[in-house]
């Protein structure tokens, strides 16, 4: 086997340091090495988006990135977005508007949507459909995902306004 590489990562605010083969994929690191199982594997070809995470502020499909490429990066997964004590408005909205069924795409979907709303806090339905096209869902037909993202956007904008 090839020589192991020394990797450091910050995942959901926690620093991680380990040795990994150059061929180790980031999704494998997250799921198998770090036990972060929110991101899922759906296709291993960058099509489905179930493995979507945020790396240095950008949505990335972790199934087709070597962990070595992410050396030194800041990684956020669904686990870092919100938890039982404080849900992210998107997590609330997906529950409220039936934006999920089997739940397999949901972590990637919500993770991607956090970036979409950062980039465009007031997206139209068309912009949401375009901006979410890297994440496949086999259950919902997307209509309630669009609705969930619109509702979360409204909540987040109202909160922002109230804070200003």
């Amino acid at each position: 086997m090839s020589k192991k590489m020394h990797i450091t990562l910050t995942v959901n605010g926690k620093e991680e340091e380990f040795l990994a083969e150059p061929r180790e994929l980031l999704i494998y690191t997250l799921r198998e090495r770090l036990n972060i199982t929110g991101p899922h594997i759906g296709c291993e070809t960058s099509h489905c988006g179930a493995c979507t995470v945020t790396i240095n502020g950008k949505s990335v499909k972790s199934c087709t990135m070597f962990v070595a490429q992410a050396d030194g990066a800041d990684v956020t997964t669904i686990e870092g977005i919100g938890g039982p004590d404080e849900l992210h408005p998107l997590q609330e909205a997906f529950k409220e508007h039936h934006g999920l069924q089997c739940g397999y795409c949901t972590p990637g979907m919500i993770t991607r949507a956090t970036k979409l709303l950062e980039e465009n806090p007031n997206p139209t339905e068309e912009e949401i459909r375009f901006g979410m096209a890297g994440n496949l869902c086999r259950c919902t037909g997307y209509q309630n995902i669009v609705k969930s993202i619109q509702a979360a956007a409204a909540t987040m904008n109202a909160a922002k306004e109230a804070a200003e």
Partner: protein
Amino acid sequence: MKDEVTRDDRIAGLKGMGTSRKRVEDARFTQGKGNYVDDIKLDGMLFGDFVRSPYAHARVTNIDTSAAMEVPGVLAVLTAADLEPLGLHWMPTLAGDKQMVLADGKVLFQGQEVAFVIAEDRYAAADGIEAVVVDYEELPVITDPFESLKSDVVLREDLDPTADGAHGPRKHPNHIFTWEAGEKEATEQVIDAAEVVAEEMIYYHRTHPCPLETCGCVASMDKVNGKLTLWGTFQAPHAIRTVVSLISGIEEHNIRVISPDIGGGFGNKVGAYAGYVCSVVASIVTGKPVKWIEDRMDNLMTTAFARDYWMKGKIAATKEGKITGLWCHTTADHGGFDACADPTKFPAGFMNICTGSYDIPTAYLAVDGVYTNKAPGGVAYRCSFRVTEAAYFIERMIEVLAIELNMDAAELRRINFIKADQFPYQSALGWEYDSGDYHTAWDKALNAVGYDNLRREQAQMVEDFKSGKSRKLLGIGLCHFTEIVGAGPVKNCDILGLGMFDSCEIRIHPTGSAIARLGTISQGQGHATTFAQILASEIGLPADSITIEEGDTDTAPYGLGTYGSRSTPVAGAATAMAGRKIRAKAQMIAAYLLEVHDDDVEFDVDRFVVKGAPERFKTMKEIAFAAYNQAIPGIEPGLEAVSYYDPPNMTYPFGAYICVMEIDVDTGEHSIRQFYALDDCGTRINPMIIEGQVHGGLTEALAIAMGQEIAYDDMGNVKTGTLMDFFLPTAWETPHYTTDHTTTPSPHHPIGAKGVGESPNVGGVPAFSNAVHDAFRAFGLRQAHMPHDHWRVWKIANQLGLHG
């Protein structure tokens, strides 16, 4: 002063049937805390993966595993030779055939399992697979079922060519079965004598359910206690336990099968696959837990294709359009092994629902199953057994007949619908439709889309196209479907001899909350939410106080699982019936507590009240406590019930779908302007979830009709083995849907519910496909096979001479 709690408040507090209760499953899924099979980790767990055949038909002359055994991290490599002493190199299929677990001398489809490498992790397993050397001797490949029936090439050399198959006589070594329904001679006479006959070959192409989560399992043999635990993506965990017991010889009480959260199923996860058998054997051999997870290519190439039916049809009618007879001969491509998931007596599923929503007095159906060098399967991809094939067939034949009669296709449907007063309706192919009101649904749908105006606009667009003003055409895709779901009555429905009942067991806790366990398993349908709603309405405890648990064979009552929209019709009925048993005992307890006769109390929402004295009552919560703390003469302590429900009939959901689609003649691209879906699934348990099911099923229908296929080349190579080639629509390609409903309860179901999850796929595919056909009707198109991707639609236009 505190506001009085009204009866309506009490009803609302239950969140029972008819409310859009939010899903209890969602908290864990939205926080990344689902527990899918690949999330399971056990101490010392190994990983197994397959060496797969690159050839579609070949002899395996040698397998050399020695180099693989030298690969760091590889512990063992299993081949058929290793499994043979255990009798596990072949396994029974759900269709009465048998299938190789690992290649036994030859391979019959590309991707077939040849050897199983067991390693410390996935990377080591992949390295081991690379190092296994397999010698193949290529054989002639057959990918066409018609050619297969004429060929001298015998695919299944393990079968006696003259012996009957599981479903009767075989006509050719590559023939599997002939299955017939209806009256052959009478139908042929009607067709010969008919004023008008339309004839067409309708191909419903091979596709795949492709849930986002692939299939997989973790097998863990505890040698100390002799217990095997098998976690996996099983749509039918109890049936899997029985199959594992039958083929392994391990007694059923020593096997625990658990379906954890499942990332979508759609039929893909009904069958028993080689990976399950190999994982179990590998765990026994190594003494360690073994995980096997398909990658996407494995999934698309090997487990559970759907459809692949060539349906030759003849439909006879009077000049006025009254249908007099329907004839269908189907050639069914089953691939290398017959591993269809159908009830035993129905090798072509419920294809004999192909008279659809119409009162067709005489009909005949024959289906020939055929072996080819393609993957085995034939599962019901988001439909009841072969029902989407049947619905597509009849809804295309109606359109072709409308062309033959030069008649409006909506009107042709209307004059042939089974009338509301004809239910229960005996169909010519042997079913008893339970209830329906098709005319009401149809009129509502046509009005909702403004049908007459759409036809005028369509005619104008044809004129504009002909005069060179526009290059776009409008298609109005009509579909009125009738499903048959809820398999099924034990008298005629079984899988591997297991009757297709289902079950529910309820325990009421002393403080008035409850747990109910069922023989089904949710894969996204929201059972934990909706079954609690059924119970809430039946037993008067809030849905929020009821836990629903499925999927663990050590705790759940035996059931046949979730597919074919059977959960609500069968397990939902079992839930209601078990709830009624609880209520019957609660009534006796209430009467005792209120010191009146049992007959003098009646159930009211969440309590039993003394008849005529509503101020005297005991709530179900109080009754629950009393069941555990009172010594009531003649009544056992506790409050529990179990029901095994054998449905008296199937249920027959129906719907009216209309797709309005613009097509660009020059690019073949389509744009869906409107999609209206009216569903009648009987009593509605949770409207929010119903709507979600319809959206999802329509999107799967969109995929199938407009681009998705499992395609092979002449060498038997799968051309669509990744999501690069296999079409799954994104949010961008998916239209906005309008949903609607009518409600015609099932008369034989305890709560009148019929099931809905699969209706949108069954009705959606014909609606999308008919829209494409309809756009070109004015230019003479009769039939163009799916999928209608841009290239194929462009070709339709080109062949019709529309590109000048």
